[in-house]
């Protein structure tokens, strides 16, 4: 089953877009996501899709056009990176607050300044509070699979939230690797047709996005927040169904060699692969180490993660973005929070790593595991807000 291929991460998600054939895509190119727009424009020109492709003049317009199309009731998607996502900011909240389940492929890149085109997570991590579901991808295969699944999650009647599917710019977006694709008809069958309960084209008079007075605004916000909570079960159901179809069943996070692990690294996107590789090398030497690869960051899998970390002595949480809060990055604060209710809390430290395309190596993870060993031996957590791979520290 499946089609054996070799594709870059960008080619993989462009292929998923072709197979899904959304009704509307409005996009503006920005490195390193530009290729996705290139490939898709070619599909449109070649008649391989019948999508209405709107070449807009900015990302603000891209998201605005997507919101308009989604409000009309059609399946809508876009793609961006870094400053492009930042320019969509205002509209991200409009999309989720208006409960429009459009999808956004984020090819993660550092936010300026100074300007940098390479990878980190400062773009999507900044958008973590915008009411979008966020799913992260280790490689081309996961980016492809996550994206196909994302439509079913966002469009579910208990969710109706927009979804961003993230992968690392250049590191996976421009790396050609093996991948197993689904046949076109299977993808079409899996995503089905989008039939929203409410839309401007439904024949029932509907207003979208009017002024929301204090009489109702709070209730709408509560519903949006509730939808994010409820999304977790829908996500798990969709993952399960996709697993039955493909043999690739995903979880909210992946537990790698965690059964008897005393030290764990929590990490997301491409570096999770390098962490697993490092974990294997240390396991060969008998070290009890493991990796948790976070896949779904919004909604945050709080209880599940706490359970997975309950038997561990020390945890390092990796952040490829700084919150500039002075107390660590966004993944760290959530993971540490998740462990608060545990009867026996592990030591938990944070590492900011890989900013702006700084290559993340096996050696970096060796150093992190060694630091966790120190923490366990000394019995003291020590400094929680740490950096790895940066010079002069």
């Amino acid at each position, binding site marked *: 089953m499946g089609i054996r291929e070799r594709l870059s991460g960008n080619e993989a998600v462009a292929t998923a877009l072709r197979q899904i054939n959304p009704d509307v895509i409005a996009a503006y190119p920005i490195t390193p996501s530009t290729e996705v727009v290139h490939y898709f424009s070619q599909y449109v020109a070649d008649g391989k899709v019948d999508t209405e492709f709107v070449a807009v003049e900015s990302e603000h317009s891209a998201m605005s056009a997507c919101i308009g199309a989604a409000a009309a009731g059609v399946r809508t998607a876009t793609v961006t990176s870094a400053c492009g996502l930042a320019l969509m900011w205002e509209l991200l909240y409009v999309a989720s607050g208006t409960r429009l389940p459009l999808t956004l492929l984020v090819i993660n890149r550092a936010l300026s300044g100074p300007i940098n085109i390479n990878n980190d997570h400062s773009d999507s991590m900044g958008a973590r509070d915008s009411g979008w579901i966020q799913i992260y991808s280790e490689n081309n295969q996961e980016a492809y699979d996550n994206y196909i699944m994302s439509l079913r999650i966002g469009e579910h009647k208990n969710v109706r939230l927009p979804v961003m599917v993230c992968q690392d710019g250049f590191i996976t977006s421009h790396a050609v690797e*093996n991948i197993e694709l689904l046949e076109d008809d299977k993808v079409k069958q899996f995503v089905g047709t989008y039939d929203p309960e409410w839309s401007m084209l439904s024949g029932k008079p509907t207003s979208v996005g009017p002024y929301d007075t204090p009489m109702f605004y709070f209730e709408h916000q509560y519903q949006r927040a509730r939808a994010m909570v409820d999304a977790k079960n829908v996500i798990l159901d969709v993952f399960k169904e996709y697993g039955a179809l493909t043999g690739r069943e995903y979880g909210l996070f992946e537990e790698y060699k965690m059964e008897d692990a005393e030290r764990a690294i929590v990490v997301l996107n491409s570096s999770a692969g390098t962490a697993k590789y490092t974990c294997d090398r240390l396991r060969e030497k008998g070290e009890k180490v493991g990796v948790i690869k976070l896949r779904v960051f919004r909604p945050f899998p709080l209880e599940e993660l706490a359970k997975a970390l309950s038997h561990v002595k020390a945890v390092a949480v990796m952040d490829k973005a700084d919150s500039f809060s002075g107390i660590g990055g966004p993944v760290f604060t959530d993971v540490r929070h998740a462990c608060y209710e545990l009867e026996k809390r592990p030591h938990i430290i944070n590492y900011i790593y890989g900013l702006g395309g700084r290559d993340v190596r096996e050696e970096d993870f060796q150093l992190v595991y060694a630091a966790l060993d120190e923490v366990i031996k000394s019995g003291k957590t020590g400094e929680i807000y740490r950096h790895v791979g940066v010079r002069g520290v």
Partner: protein
Amino acid sequence: MSNMVEIRWHGRGGQGAKTASLLLADAAFSIGKYVQGFPEYGPERMGAPITAFNRISDERSSLHSNIYEPDYVVVVDPTLLSAVSVTSGLKKDGAVIINSNKDPEEFRPLLEGFEGKVYTIDAGVIAEQEIGRNIPNTPMLGAVVKISGVIPEDKFLEDMEQSLKDTFASKPHVIEGNMKAIKRSLQEVKGL
């Protein structure tokens, strides 16, 4: 992963080192290998030093870092030898393959004490004569396949012909020129 072969390409923007790494990934994929082909992106401009990488193995590699201890280093532009430490981390039993008409041993003094094998291939001239332009990447690719043995030569030639046919359907002379260049490169590597 003991069966993994790691290759690092050094070229200048515009010479096709990235394309060569992707073609090699394609060819290795076609014989059932797990592949990675990826460039390192910096300030991109014609003539700037660039690096590209290949991992080729029997199982999927989850590593997503650059390559620091390659089995093979390919130097598409020999003027880089005075600017970039191309043999950095190169395994002792590995090899460096340089685009040049000179004898391999002439490069030894520029290789910062590297004691392994050195090969040369006159890829620029082969490309000029067979393709009509100095785009050395396909003849360099031929030399890499010859020396590394990661792909059987006949399978490689078959796959390259198909890739070129897919890419240049409307330009048959390009296909013929590139195929001649690749076949010559398999024969003309110096240092064997």
